[in-house]
């Protein structure tokens, strides 16, 4: 099959709605199709990858650890919008350290997250073939 550039646009906070979880389920399935996969976290979507999420008080499963597994599926293009973090009083330090191992560089562990400006994000979005938003 042809290879296309798939962009998963995540703009909603986790747990309040199911969109973050069910988007992640698509990403995991997509990994088997050997397509070019990117994830964008914009607006409240940045809360999906904050570290130290704890769902003990709400009776729901904490699925945030699954984002850490994305590197194992060679999903390592994760774009986070700086303006979205700034507006929410967050910084890159508030996010989970998502990483992948570069086969071509002696399996060196490298960061998957790229913090980009809104302008850069717009350019990233424009370069895709398919945009999934949930």
């Amino acid at each position, binding site marked *: 099959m042809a290879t296309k550039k798939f962009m998963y646009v995540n703009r909603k906070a986790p747990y309040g709605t199911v969109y973050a979880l069910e988007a992640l389920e698509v990403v995991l399935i997509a990994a088997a199709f050997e397509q070019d996969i990117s994830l964008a976290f914009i607006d409240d979507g940045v809360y999906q990858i904050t570290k130290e999420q704890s769902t003990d008080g709400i009776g729901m499963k904490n699925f945030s650890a699954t984002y850490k597994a994305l590197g194992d599926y060679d999903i390592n293009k994760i774009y986070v919008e700086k303006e979205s973090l700034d507006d929410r009083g967050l910084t890159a330090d508030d996010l989970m350290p998502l990483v992948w191992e570069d086969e071509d560089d002696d399996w060196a562990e490298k960061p998957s997250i790229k913090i980009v400006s809104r302008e850069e994000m717009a350019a990233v979005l*424009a370069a895709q073939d398919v945009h999934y938003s949930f």
Partner: protein
Amino acid sequence: MAMLHIVNKSPFERVAFKSCLDHALAGDSILMIEDAAVGATDGTIFSEELKAAMADKSVYVLGGDLAARGVSEDRMIDGIKVVDYAGFVNLTVENDTTQSWV
């Protein structure tokens, strides 16, 4: 690669429409459907922002959704084009990709 941005949320209710405008590039098209149709109205707290975007982007509204919310076409911002569902389909064809700002 020109993109069609489909927005279905009222600009007075959610940040999605603003976020769409913040990420659309020159040459892109924006189509307002469902509750977003009210964004076509001139003289609102949102209209100047949409007019600014129209300097280098094309803006469309689904006529049926506009009429359903009681906004007559003569209240629209000048330059917004009204389309029906056939026009909606054509916009998805004419642009290389589509993105829904749900």
